[in-house]
Protein backbone atom coordinates (compact mmCIF):
# COMPACT_ATOMS: atom_id res chain seq x y z
CA UNK A 1 0.00 0.00 0.00
CA UNK A 2 1.40 3.36 -0.98
CA UNK A 3 1.38 5.73 1.96
CA UNK A 4 -0.67 8.76 1.08
CA UNK A 5 1.56 11.20 2.96
CA UNK A 6 -0.89 13.41 4.91
CA UNK A 7 1.46 16.44 4.89
CA UNK A 8 -0.69 18.31 7.36
CA UNK A 9 0.15 21.94 7.42
CA UNK A 10 0.57 23.34 10.91
CA UNK A 11 -0.12 27.07 10.83
CA UNK A 12 2.47 29.07 12.81
CA UNK A 13 0.98 30.80 15.86
CA UNK A 14 1.87 34.34 14.67
CA UNK A 15 -0.32 33.79 11.59
CA UNK A 16 -3.31 32.93 13.78
CA UNK A 17 -2.74 35.97 15.97
CA UNK A 18 -2.27 38.26 12.96
CA UNK A 19 -5.56 37.05 11.44
CA UNK A 20 -7.27 37.50 14.80
CA UNK A 21 -5.94 41.07 15.06
CA UNK A 22 -7.13 41.81 11.52
CA UNK A 23 -10.61 40.51 12.39
CA UNK A 24 -10.80 42.69 15.50
CA UNK A 25 -9.64 45.75 13.54
CA UNK A 26 -12.19 44.93 10.84
CA UNK A 27 -14.97 44.77 13.44
CA UNK A 28 -13.98 48.14 14.93
CA UNK A 29 -13.72 49.63 11.42
CA UNK A 30 -17.22 48.36 10.53
CA UNK A 31 -18.61 49.93 13.66
CA UNK A 32 -16.72 53.19 13.15
CA UNK A 33 -17.72 53.47 9.48
CA UNK A 34 -21.37 53.06 10.48
CA UNK A 35 -21.20 56.10 12.79
CA UNK A 36 -20.35 58.51 9.99
CA UNK A 37 -22.78 59.34 7.24
CA UNK A 38 -21.20 58.48 3.91
CA UNK A 39 -24.46 58.38 2.00
CA UNK A 40 -24.71 55.47 -0.43
CA UNK A 41 -21.14 54.40 0.40
CA UNK A 42 -22.01 53.11 3.90
CA UNK A 43 -23.46 49.83 2.65
CA UNK A 44 -20.64 48.90 0.20
CA UNK A 45 -18.03 49.71 2.87
CA UNK A 46 -19.74 47.41 5.40
CA UNK A 47 -20.03 44.69 2.75
CA UNK A 48 -16.39 44.95 1.69
CA UNK A 49 -15.11 44.79 5.29
CA UNK A 50 -17.35 41.81 6.10
CA UNK A 51 -16.21 40.01 2.93
CA UNK A 52 -12.53 40.58 3.72
CA UNK A 53 -13.11 39.24 7.25
CA UNK A 54 -14.91 36.16 5.87
CA UNK A 55 -12.10 35.49 3.36
CA UNK A 56 -9.49 35.71 6.15
CA UNK A 57 -11.47 33.23 8.29
CA UNK A 58 -11.90 30.83 5.35
CA UNK A 59 -8.26 30.97 4.20
CA UNK A 60 -6.51 30.79 7.57
CA UNK A 61 -8.85 29.59 10.33
CA UNK A 62 -10.57 27.10 8.03
CA UNK A 63 -7.23 26.26 6.40
CA UNK A 64 -8.53 26.55 2.84
CA UNK A 65 -5.16 28.04 1.86
CA UNK A 66 -3.55 24.67 2.64
CA UNK A 67 -6.41 22.46 1.41
CA UNK A 68 -6.58 20.32 -1.72
CA UNK A 69 -7.65 21.75 -5.05
CA UNK A 70 -10.80 19.67 -4.91
CA UNK A 71 -11.77 21.50 -1.70
CA UNK A 72 -11.14 24.80 -3.46
CA UNK A 73 -13.49 23.72 -6.25
CA UNK A 74 -16.28 22.93 -3.76
CA UNK A 75 -15.83 26.22 -1.89
CA UNK A 76 -15.69 28.33 -5.04
CA UNK A 77 -18.72 26.46 -6.44
CA UNK A 78 -20.65 27.25 -3.25
CA UNK A 79 -20.06 30.98 -3.68
CA UNK A 80 -20.73 30.75 -7.41
CA UNK A 81 -24.17 29.29 -6.66
CA UNK A 82 -24.71 32.02 -4.07
CA UNK A 83 -23.81 34.64 -6.68
CA UNK A 84 -26.27 33.10 -9.15
CA UNK A 85 -28.99 33.12 -6.50
CA UNK A 86 -28.42 36.82 -5.86
CA UNK A 87 -27.90 38.00 -9.43
CA UNK A 88 -30.86 36.16 -10.93
CA UNK A 89 -33.24 37.09 -8.10
CA UNK A 90 -32.19 40.74 -8.08
CA UNK A 91 -32.40 40.99 -11.86
CA UNK A 92 -36.08 40.17 -11.39
CA UNK A 93 -37.12 42.04 -8.23
CA UNK A 94 -35.02 45.16 -8.64
CA UNK A 95 -36.29 45.78 -12.17
CA UNK A 96 -40.00 45.28 -11.45
CA UNK A 97 -40.68 48.83 -10.31
CA UNK A 98 -39.06 50.80 -13.10
CA UNK A 99 -41.51 53.40 -14.25
CA UNK A 100 -42.45 52.98 -17.89
CA UNK A 101 -44.08 56.33 -18.47
Amino acid sequence: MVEHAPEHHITPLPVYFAVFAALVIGTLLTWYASTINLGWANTPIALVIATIKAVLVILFFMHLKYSTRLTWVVVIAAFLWLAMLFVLTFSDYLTRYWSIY
Partner: protein
Amino acid sequence: MTVAAEQEAHAHHPALQHHFEDLGQQHEASILGMWMFLATEILFFGGILCAYWIYRALYPEAWALGAAQQNTLAGGINTLVLIISSLTMALAVRNAQVANRRATVAMLVATLIFGCVFLAIKTYEYNAHWHEGLFPGEHFTWHENPELAPKLELFMVFYWGMTGLHALHMVIGVGLLLWFIWRAWRGDFGPEYYSPVEVMGLYWHFVDIIWIFLFPFLYLIHQVGGHHG
Protein backbone atom coordinates in the same frame (compact mmCIF):
# COMPACT_ATOMS: atom_id res chain seq x y z
CA MET B 1 -4.64 -15.87 7.96
CA THR B 2 -1.02 -16.12 9.01
CA VAL B 3 0.19 -14.37 12.14
CA ALA B 4 2.24 -11.96 10.06
CA ALA B 5 -0.70 -11.09 7.82
CA GLU B 6 -2.89 -10.57 10.84
CA GLN B 7 -0.36 -8.19 12.36
CA GLU B 8 -0.15 -6.38 9.03
CA ALA B 9 -3.94 -6.02 8.94
CA HIS B 10 -4.04 -4.56 12.44
CA ALA B 11 -1.02 -2.31 12.07
CA HIS B 12 -3.07 0.66 10.95
CA HIS B 13 -4.31 3.49 13.16
CA PRO B 14 -7.42 2.50 15.15
CA ALA B 15 -9.32 5.50 13.74
CA LEU B 16 -8.70 4.45 10.11
CA GLN B 17 -11.94 3.23 8.56
CA HIS B 18 -11.58 0.17 6.36
CA HIS B 19 -12.89 1.83 3.20
CA PHE B 20 -10.03 4.35 3.15
CA GLU B 21 -6.50 3.67 1.98
CA ASP B 22 -4.92 5.62 4.79
CA LEU B 23 -5.51 8.44 7.26
CA GLY B 24 -4.46 11.09 4.75
CA GLN B 25 -7.18 10.05 2.33
CA GLN B 26 -9.70 9.76 5.16
CA HIS B 27 -8.79 13.26 6.34
CA GLU B 28 -9.24 14.75 2.87
CA ALA B 29 -12.61 13.04 2.49
CA SER B 30 -13.77 14.44 5.86
CA ILE B 31 -12.74 17.98 4.95
CA LEU B 32 -14.32 17.74 1.51
CA GLY B 33 -17.57 16.31 2.91
CA MET B 34 -17.80 19.05 5.53
CA TRP B 35 -17.28 21.73 2.89
CA MET B 36 -20.06 20.22 0.80
CA PHE B 37 -22.36 20.47 3.82
CA LEU B 38 -21.22 24.05 4.38
CA ALA B 39 -22.00 24.80 0.72
CA THR B 40 -25.62 23.85 1.44
CA GLU B 41 -25.50 26.02 4.57
CA ILE B 42 -24.15 28.97 2.59
CA LEU B 43 -27.12 28.67 0.22
CA PHE B 44 -29.53 28.14 3.13
CA PHE B 45 -28.53 31.42 4.77
CA GLY B 46 -28.03 32.93 1.30
CA GLY B 47 -31.70 32.50 0.44
CA ILE B 48 -32.76 34.36 3.57
CA LEU B 49 -30.17 37.07 2.95
CA CYS B 50 -31.45 37.47 -0.61
CA ALA B 51 -34.99 38.07 0.68
CA TYR B 52 -33.56 40.47 3.28
CA TRP B 53 -31.86 42.56 0.56
CA ILE B 54 -34.97 42.72 -1.60
CA TYR B 55 -37.09 44.05 1.26
CA ARG B 56 -34.27 46.34 2.33
CA ALA B 57 -34.28 47.85 -1.18
CA LEU B 58 -38.07 48.22 -0.99
CA TYR B 59 -38.32 49.62 2.56
CA PRO B 60 -35.04 51.42 3.35
CA GLU B 61 -36.64 53.64 6.04
CA ALA B 62 -38.07 50.68 7.93
CA TRP B 63 -34.73 48.87 7.72
CA ALA B 64 -32.84 51.87 9.10
CA LEU B 65 -35.47 52.29 11.83
CA GLY B 66 -35.22 48.60 12.72
CA ALA B 67 -31.44 48.74 12.93
CA ALA B 68 -31.74 51.82 15.14
CA GLN B 69 -33.69 49.68 17.66
CA GLN B 70 -30.73 47.32 18.05
CA ASN B 71 -28.22 47.38 20.87
CA THR B 72 -25.08 48.09 18.82
CA LEU B 73 -22.79 47.69 21.84
CA ALA B 74 -24.17 44.22 22.64
CA GLY B 75 -23.95 43.21 18.97
CA GLY B 76 -20.41 44.57 18.66
CA ILE B 77 -19.22 42.82 21.82
CA ASN B 78 -20.80 39.61 20.57
CA THR B 79 -18.94 39.96 17.26
CA LEU B 80 -15.66 40.22 19.19
CA VAL B 81 -16.66 37.30 21.45
CA LEU B 82 -17.25 35.10 18.39
CA ILE B 83 -13.96 36.15 16.82
CA ILE B 84 -12.12 35.23 20.03
CA SER B 85 -13.96 31.89 20.07
CA SER B 86 -12.84 31.29 16.48
CA LEU B 87 -9.25 31.93 17.51
CA THR B 88 -9.51 29.46 20.42
CA MET B 89 -11.15 26.92 18.08
CA ALA B 90 -8.29 27.31 15.58
CA LEU B 91 -5.80 26.89 18.46
CA ALA B 92 -7.62 23.73 19.58
CA VAL B 93 -7.05 22.21 16.13
CA ARG B 94 -3.41 23.30 16.20
CA ASN B 95 -2.85 21.79 19.64
CA ALA B 96 -4.30 18.49 18.42
CA GLN B 97 -1.87 18.66 15.49
CA VAL B 98 1.12 19.10 17.81
CA ALA B 99 -0.09 16.40 20.24
CA ASN B 100 -0.83 18.70 23.18
CA ARG B 101 -3.87 17.00 24.66
CA ARG B 102 -4.30 19.27 27.68
CA ALA B 103 -4.09 22.44 25.55
CA THR B 104 -6.56 20.96 23.05
CA VAL B 105 -9.05 20.37 25.86
CA ALA B 106 -8.36 23.84 27.32
CA MET B 107 -8.92 25.57 23.97
CA LEU B 108 -12.13 23.61 23.33
CA VAL B 109 -13.37 24.58 26.80
CA ALA B 110 -12.49 28.23 26.07
CA THR B 111 -14.43 28.03 22.79
CA LEU B 112 -17.38 26.56 24.67
CA ILE B 113 -17.26 29.37 27.25
CA PHE B 114 -17.12 32.13 24.61
CA GLY B 115 -19.95 30.43 22.73
CA CYS B 116 -22.04 30.49 25.91
CA VAL B 117 -21.13 34.16 26.53
CA PHE B 118 -22.41 34.94 23.03
CA LEU B 119 -25.68 33.12 23.70
CA ALA B 120 -26.08 34.85 27.08
CA ILE B 121 -25.69 38.32 25.52
CA LYS B 122 -28.07 37.31 22.71
CA THR B 123 -30.63 36.16 25.30
CA TYR B 124 -30.31 39.53 27.04
CA GLU B 125 -31.02 41.28 23.72
CA TYR B 126 -33.96 38.98 22.92
CA ASN B 127 -35.42 39.65 26.34
CA ALA B 128 -35.14 43.42 25.82
CA HIS B 129 -36.80 43.23 22.38
CA TRP B 130 -39.58 41.06 23.76
CA HIS B 131 -40.37 43.68 26.43
CA GLU B 132 -40.07 46.52 23.89
CA GLY B 133 -42.83 44.85 21.89
CA LEU B 134 -40.49 44.19 18.99
CA PHE B 135 -41.62 40.62 18.48
CA PRO B 136 -43.67 40.18 15.28
CA GLY B 137 -47.31 39.32 15.78
CA GLU B 138 -50.90 40.45 15.67
CA HIS B 139 -50.40 43.30 18.15
CA PHE B 140 -47.21 44.71 16.66
CA THR B 141 -47.42 48.51 16.62
CA TRP B 142 -45.14 51.48 16.21
CA HIS B 143 -46.72 54.55 17.75
CA GLU B 144 -44.33 57.15 16.34
CA ASN B 145 -45.22 56.14 12.80
CA PRO B 146 -48.07 53.59 12.53
CA GLU B 147 -47.76 53.48 8.75
CA LEU B 148 -44.24 52.15 9.05
CA ALA B 149 -45.27 49.49 11.61
CA PRO B 150 -45.89 46.59 9.16
CA LYS B 151 -42.55 47.26 7.44
CA LEU B 152 -40.72 47.51 10.75
CA GLU B 153 -42.41 44.28 11.75
CA LEU B 154 -41.04 42.67 8.59
CA PHE B 155 -37.54 43.83 9.54
CA MET B 156 -38.02 42.24 12.95
CA VAL B 157 -39.14 38.99 11.26
CA PHE B 158 -35.78 38.95 9.51
CA TYR B 159 -34.02 39.95 12.72
CA TRP B 160 -35.53 37.16 14.83
CA GLY B 161 -35.34 34.64 11.99
CA MET B 162 -31.73 35.26 11.02
CA THR B 163 -30.31 35.69 14.52
CA GLY B 164 -32.50 32.82 15.72
CA LEU B 165 -31.18 30.43 13.06
CA HIS B 166 -27.68 31.62 13.85
CA ALA B 167 -28.27 31.05 17.58
CA LEU B 168 -29.64 27.57 16.81
CA HIS B 169 -26.37 26.81 15.02
CA MET B 170 -24.50 28.11 18.06
CA VAL B 171 -26.50 25.88 20.41
CA ILE B 172 -25.73 22.86 18.18
CA GLY B 173 -22.06 23.94 18.16
CA VAL B 174 -22.00 24.17 21.96
CA GLY B 175 -23.49 20.67 22.19
CA LEU B 176 -20.89 19.32 19.74
CA LEU B 177 -18.13 21.04 21.73
CA LEU B 178 -19.19 19.24 24.93
CA TRP B 179 -18.84 15.94 23.07
CA PHE B 180 -15.49 16.99 21.58
CA ILE B 181 -14.11 18.09 24.95
CA TRP B 182 -14.91 14.61 26.25
CA ARG B 183 -13.27 12.94 23.23
CA ALA B 184 -10.19 15.17 23.39
CA TRP B 185 -9.89 14.48 27.12
CA ARG B 186 -10.11 10.74 26.40
CA GLY B 187 -7.18 11.14 24.02
CA ASP B 188 -8.92 10.40 20.70
CA PHE B 189 -7.01 13.06 18.79
CA GLY B 190 -3.37 13.53 17.87
CA PRO B 191 -1.07 14.56 15.03
CA GLU B 192 -2.07 11.54 12.93
CA TYR B 193 -5.78 11.81 13.56
CA TYR B 194 -7.35 15.17 14.28
CA SER B 195 -9.87 15.30 11.39
CA PRO B 196 -12.93 15.49 13.70
CA VAL B 197 -11.50 18.55 15.49
CA GLU B 198 -10.74 20.14 12.14
CA VAL B 199 -14.30 19.46 10.93
CA MET B 200 -15.71 20.84 14.22
CA GLY B 201 -13.57 23.92 13.56
CA LEU B 202 -14.96 24.31 10.03
CA TYR B 203 -18.48 24.34 11.46
CA TRP B 204 -17.62 26.80 14.22
CA HIS B 205 -15.82 29.21 11.88
CA PHE B 206 -18.70 29.04 9.41
CA VAL B 207 -21.14 30.10 12.13
CA ASP B 208 -18.73 32.93 12.99
CA ILE B 209 -18.74 34.06 9.33
CA ILE B 210 -22.55 34.19 9.32
CA TRP B 211 -22.44 36.54 12.30
CA ILE B 212 -19.73 38.66 10.64
CA PHE B 213 -22.38 39.46 8.00
CA LEU B 214 -25.42 39.61 10.31
CA PHE B 215 -23.85 42.25 12.56
CA PRO B 216 -23.59 45.04 9.94
CA PHE B 217 -26.79 43.88 8.17
CA LEU B 218 -29.01 44.02 11.24
CA TYR B 219 -27.34 46.49 13.59
CA LEU B 220 -25.48 49.04 11.47
CA ILE B 221 -27.78 50.18 8.67
CA HIS B 222 -27.45 53.82 7.85
CA GLN B 223 -30.44 55.87 6.83
CA VAL B 224 -29.59 57.01 3.32
CA GLY B 225 -31.41 60.14 2.23
CA GLY B 226 -34.86 58.77 2.96
CA HIS B 227 -36.40 59.44 -0.43
CA HIS B 228 -36.43 55.82 -1.65
CA GLY B 229 -39.26 53.32 -1.80
